[in-house]
């Protein structure tokens, strides 16, 4: 047991580091660009040099690299300040689905532009009545000749307002049980009848959208998988979601809380000397450390060419609630000042308060805490699924309740 790269891995790491040193965009280069422009500039630069979508085949704009090389690249890139990526959904979820279900021609047309960042994709899955129970979605698709006509509404669509293309799952047949009547497409977000409305979040931001479809026409050639097979196709997408959504660190971790506890006072002594503070900090340290070394174990499995076990899927289940609790704890350390989020006055320019307000989203997006626990219980521990009262019932006969 040691912490060393193999010789080949060490060489790859060195190459990556060298390239990054020379090519990470400078502040001057990014001057005047908005976050989309910054993200696109960096993505294109990586793509041109063969450092984009490392695991993809070269013909689609990748590098044909191994899983462990992908991890090493991620570690090395993570050491630099780089523009925040806006391509995860396209590259991490839409692309694997396209690779599995699109025609060769479509792959050649779309994948390289996904890799280069020229085109941005979003994922049109969740609906007002179908979140954790995704297969309860109601957006209707009806086939008319060589085309489909889509009507309905999606929600929580990250980045829909700047996306060029979207992956979409719809209900093509409401008269069969819910998993059997779905059909999956990709579509041009500029198609007539697509309307994007941003949703203002409790954090004040608006990263998500509602997307309305009114008689939107999609060519049948943009259907992925067979008619009625949309659920199977969706599973391909969702399996990649867990892989692409990270631990939800969001900036407030042990280091931030520890530094703060050294600085603020409790009963005229640094808070870090207070045993209750020490105990809570220790618990979070243990969680962060546990996730980190679980990551090392996963990397080891990858390095040996094995498929990592499901243990890595605990990252979001642990990280998201921890972020919320730590932000809340840090604000408590500030006592009355903890309420102040005025960036000119607040500790850390209001980052703690911002994290506190953003963190509920982390516990919901990409699978709620509860869904994550269900996944661990069912897929890792092998416990049976809950009873499903809609099993085998035609979708249009399933009770719907409010919404």
């Amino acid at each position, binding site marked *: 047991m040691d912490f060393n790269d*193999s010789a080949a891995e060490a060489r790859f790491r060195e190459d990556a580091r060298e390239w990054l040193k020379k090519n990470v965009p400078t502040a001057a280069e990014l001057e005047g660009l908005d976050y989309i422009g910054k993200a696109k500039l960096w993505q294109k630069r990586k793509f041109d040099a063969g450092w984009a979508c490392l695991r993809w085949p070269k013909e689609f704009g990748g590098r044909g690299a191994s899983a462990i090389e992908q991890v090493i690249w991620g570690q090395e890139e993570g050491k630099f300040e780089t523009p925040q990526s806006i391509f995860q959904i396209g590259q991490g979820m839409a692309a694997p689905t396209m690779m599995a279900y699109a025609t060769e021609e479509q792959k050649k047309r779309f994948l390289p532009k996904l890799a280069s960042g020229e085109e941005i994709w979003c994922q049109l899955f969740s609906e007002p009545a179908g979140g954790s129970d995704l297969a309860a979605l109601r957006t209707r698709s009806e086939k008319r000749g060589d085309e489909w006509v889509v009507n309905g509404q999606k929600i929580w669509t990250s980045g829909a307002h700047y996306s060029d293309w979207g992956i979409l799952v719809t209900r093509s047949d409401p008269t069969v049980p819910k998993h059997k009547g779905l059909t999956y497409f990709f579509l041009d977000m500029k198609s007539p009848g697509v309307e994007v409305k941003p949703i203002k979040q409790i954090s004040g931001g608006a990263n998500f959208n509602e997307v309305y479809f009114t008689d939107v026409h999609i060519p049948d050639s943009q259907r992925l998988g067979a008619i009625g097979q949309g659920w199977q196709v969706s599973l391909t997408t969702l399996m990649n979601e867990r892989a692409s959504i990270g631990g939800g660190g969001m900036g407030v971790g042990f280091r931030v809380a520890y530094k703060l506890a050294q600085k603020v006072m409790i009963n005229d002594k640094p808070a870090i000397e207070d045993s209750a503070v020490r105990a809570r900090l220790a618990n979070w340290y243990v969680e962060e450390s546990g996730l980190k070394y679980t990551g090392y174990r996963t990397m080891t499995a990858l390095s040996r060419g094995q498929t990592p076990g499901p243990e890595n899927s*605990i990252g979001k289940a642990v990280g998201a609630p921890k972020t919320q609790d730590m932000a809340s704890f840090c604000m408590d350390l500030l006592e009355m000042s903890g309420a102040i989020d005025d960036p000119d006055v607040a500790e850390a320019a209001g980052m703690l308060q911002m994290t506190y307000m953003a963190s509920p989203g982390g516990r919901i997006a990409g699978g709620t805490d509860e869904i994550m626990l269900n996944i661990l219980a069912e897929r890792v521990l092998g416990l049976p699924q809950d009873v499903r009262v809609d099993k085998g019932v035609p979708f249009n006969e399933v009770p719907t309740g409010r919404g």
Partner: protein
Amino acid sequence: MEKPWGGRMNFEFSEEQNLLREQANGFLKDNCPPTAVRKILEGKASYDEGLWKKIGEMGWTATTIPEQYGGLGLGYLELCVIAEELGRAVAPVPFSSSVYLATEALLLAGNEEQKERWLTRLATGEAIGTFALSEGPGRPSPKSLKTALSKGRLRGTKVAVPDGDIADFAVVVAKSRVGDKASWYLVDLSQRNVKSTPVSTLDPTRSHASITFRSADAELLGAEGEGWALTQKLLDRAAILFAWEQVGGAEAALNQAKEYALGRYAFGRPIASYQAIKHKLATAYIKNTLARSNCYYGAWALNTNAAELALAAATARVSATQAYYFASKENIQTHGGMGFTWEFDCQFHYRRSKLLSVNIGSEGAWQDRLITAVEHSNVA
């Protein structure tokens, strides 16, 4: 955290070590089934003597003892593997006292003659050693120690001493006037001036005693006035091995809960299909996984005597203590009323988890040590 990413791709036990794990697992399944644990729980014997003898024959007690003292001279990763399996089996043997504490204390501080005298017998399991620190309720410190040397003879009472009723010798932490105000003494427990009285604890599968030294013969182990520093060092090392036992136990408790939940039906379906049960068990799985990964880190630090050993030890220990406590109590809860009956084995883990968590310092003590270790490193 403690180091910049350096690229760490071989963070796993070797094939030989995994083979050892399988062997240990199989051996304990055959030689330490729940019925064997129950026999000690319900009977008069302090420990499973037959099992202990076989463990000695297998060489587990000799794992880290150098060959010159009759040991195997293996590394600590092997010992971690064995510890996990002993924890899984809730083995009723004095392994932790004799191996993680007494053997380690001698390796840390013993002179040639002392090592020669005890290590050879510890290696075979023929001798049992223990470590005597606690003198009563509360967290011990050099100030709180009352056991001390008077006119060259040791006086005082240690309670509770793990395996104190069966040990041949003890490493005793006593008050000192110099240095860090504590010294270690090696005390032969078979002498007349030592009175050892068994005290019952919540885990009868691991016996404990109250030991009174009445002008007992005692020889210095390590230098005078270095006993407290040595104690900290020893506890750090032992904490990692205890943590591996805890992780083994936690996993066994989760498995027990899972098996029961799959077979037990309520309202026409397995209780394992209810989210209240699933989420409980998934949470136990998360805690166990984090603890195991932290124990990997601890094993690496112990085996390489890394500079960050104290931090790694506290991390593994806090994590494993929390995981085992959670898994053992929720195992009973998952079993419902049956889990509360004497007949069911759920109690083994519930008892053992608490015993292990207070044995070398409570959760709170180790949380405090963790932050102290952070303060001493340049982690944050």
